[in-house]
């Protein structure tokens, strides 16, 4: 293989076969790669809108879109055409430059994540050595888009929604980052390609299930989907931060949210389920994309199920759940994983060949048992706390009718 990204494989081939100067070939290579990376999530988003609506409809005992095209497959296109013809309203008193920039930032923050995601063994936008850090940096731009949109649209509902959602997003960024560090630690690298390759022996979802759980929950909160959808609590805030937007600007926020959910599913697949790895992927690299999409679909459907089956939680519950449960758990999980990895290496159980399944078994068993022990300890602590709370509540309940009767 030798080449590790689209540009490296494409440009030398073009210059050697057609006699194009290498600089121009490089430029064309970068240009084509960028177009592919930027348009892939936008195209996927169109398919996702249909999937999501059909899935939600089935859960709610409806049929969902079924008029436009076969099975309603053309419904997203009809929606886009409808939104194109809508009036683009800028509210009076809006801060125009910021108002127009917010939807752009919202989509760009998601599109940029795709630059580092490995699609197949040889098709990676850029294999950055700091891929994980790059993801964190770029993903936090999405928070900025929300506060920009709310502030610039001069609307009280929008601003109230944005306060809540920014508090939520910055809070859940902490466990997200700490859970992301567990695969980084086991792989010993921040490059997403190295993290995928380190899972050739064993998927990290087996050796670090708590980190996978933490990443999934906080990624769901980062997208602002139910049960963490305080930003668009329809009954309280009408629509949240994007209330004043119409036409394609509204569609950009919408598309950004859909792409964010799918991007998180892809990241779950890359970080914890071996990304493009699968049988025969060394011979036929394009199979890697199929495996990646299958694994991502699993997490995507799980996230849709969560969205449709769970009720919205209150903001104080949201904050307590994050700061008193997710954050301490993620730090302790990180430290325990580090301790176990070092013990495994001191004892000599570390895999000699990281790519072989058999060599990885001892380390995986140790890590899995460590995770299981941590899970039991944390869950018993949670149980004791809530049992005490429940007891206190039942005691006050017993007193109430007595006083009311007197």
């Amino acid at each position, binding site marked *: 293989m030798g080449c590790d990204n689209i540009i490296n494989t494409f440009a030398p081939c073009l210059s050697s076969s057609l006699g194009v100067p290498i600089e121009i070939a490089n430029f064309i290579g970068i240009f084509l790669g960028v177009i592919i990376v930027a348009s892939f999530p936008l195209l996927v988003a169109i398919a996702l809108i249909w999937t999501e609506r059909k899935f939600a409809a089935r859960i709610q005992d409806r049929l969902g879109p079924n008029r436009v095209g076969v099975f309603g497959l053309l419904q997203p296109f009809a929606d886009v055409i409808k939104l194109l*013809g809508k*009036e683009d309203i800028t509210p009076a008193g809006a801060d125009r430059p910021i108002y127009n920039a917010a939807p752009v930032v919202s989509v*760009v923050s998601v599109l*940029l994540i795709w630059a580092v995601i490995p699609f197949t063994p040889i098709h990676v936008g850029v294999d950055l050595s700091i891929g994980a850090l790059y993801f964190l940096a770029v993903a936090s731009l999405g928070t900025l888009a929300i506060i920009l949109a709310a502030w610039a649209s*001069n*609307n009280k509902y929008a601003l109230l929604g944005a306060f809540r959602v920014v508090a939520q997003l910055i*809070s859940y960024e902490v466990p997200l980052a700490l859970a992301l*560090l567990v695969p980084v630690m086991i792989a010993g690298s921040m490059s997403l390609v190295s993290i995928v390759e380190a899972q050739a022996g064993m998927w990290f979802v087996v050796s670090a299930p708590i980190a996978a759980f933490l990443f999934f929950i906080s990624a769901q909160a980062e997208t602002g989907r139910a049960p963490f959808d305080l930003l668009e609590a329809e009954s309280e805030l009408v629509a949240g931060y994007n209330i004043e937007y119409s036409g394609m600007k509204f569609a950009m926020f919408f598309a950004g949210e859909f792409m964010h959910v799918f991007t998180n599913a892809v990241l779950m697949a890359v970080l914890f389920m071996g990304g493009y790895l699968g049988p025969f992927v060394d011979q036929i690299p394009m199979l890697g994309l199929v495996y990646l999409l299958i694994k991502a679909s699993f997490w995507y459907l799980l996230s849709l199920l969560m969205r449709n089956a769970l009720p919205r939680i209150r903001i104080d519950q949201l904050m307590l759940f994050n*700061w008193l449960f997710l954050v301490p758990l993620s730090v302790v999980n*990180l430290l325990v994983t580090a301790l176990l990895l070092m013990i495994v290496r001191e004892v000599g159980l570390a895999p000699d060949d990281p790519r072989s399944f058999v060599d990885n078994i001892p380390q995986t068993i140790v890590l899995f048992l460590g995770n299981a022990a941590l899970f039991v300890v944390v869950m018993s602590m949670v149980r004791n706390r809530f049992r005490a709370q429940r007891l206190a509540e039942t005691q006050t309940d017993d007193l109430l009718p007595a006083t009311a009767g007197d």
Partner: protein
Amino acid sequence: MALQQFAPIAALIILAVVLTFIISNISTIFGPSNNTSRKTAPYESGMQPIGVGMRRMPVKFYLIGVLFILFDIEVIFFLPWAVVFRDLGFYGLAVMGLFFFILTIGLIYEWKKGALEWE
């Protein structure tokens, strides 16, 4: 290698910004444009809006912000350690544990002060 690596990302930023800017403004071309003062007024469920929408934020959110900064700095220190923790050994782990312990005291203090309660 160092900065050259980021050339495609710079190209992606430019392309993504241009593309999304064009898409997000496309309905100004295709859509109608007959603004009235009623239409451009801030939407407040049909009520006459009072005052401006750009208001100061409740102090509660500043506390959350401070808590976030506290822990985000922790994450920043954890990031390089997670890559090289094998070389730093048990000493590095003990130091990070102590660091986390000190931060936890801050978290417990803020919790007991009632920063996480919404009344």
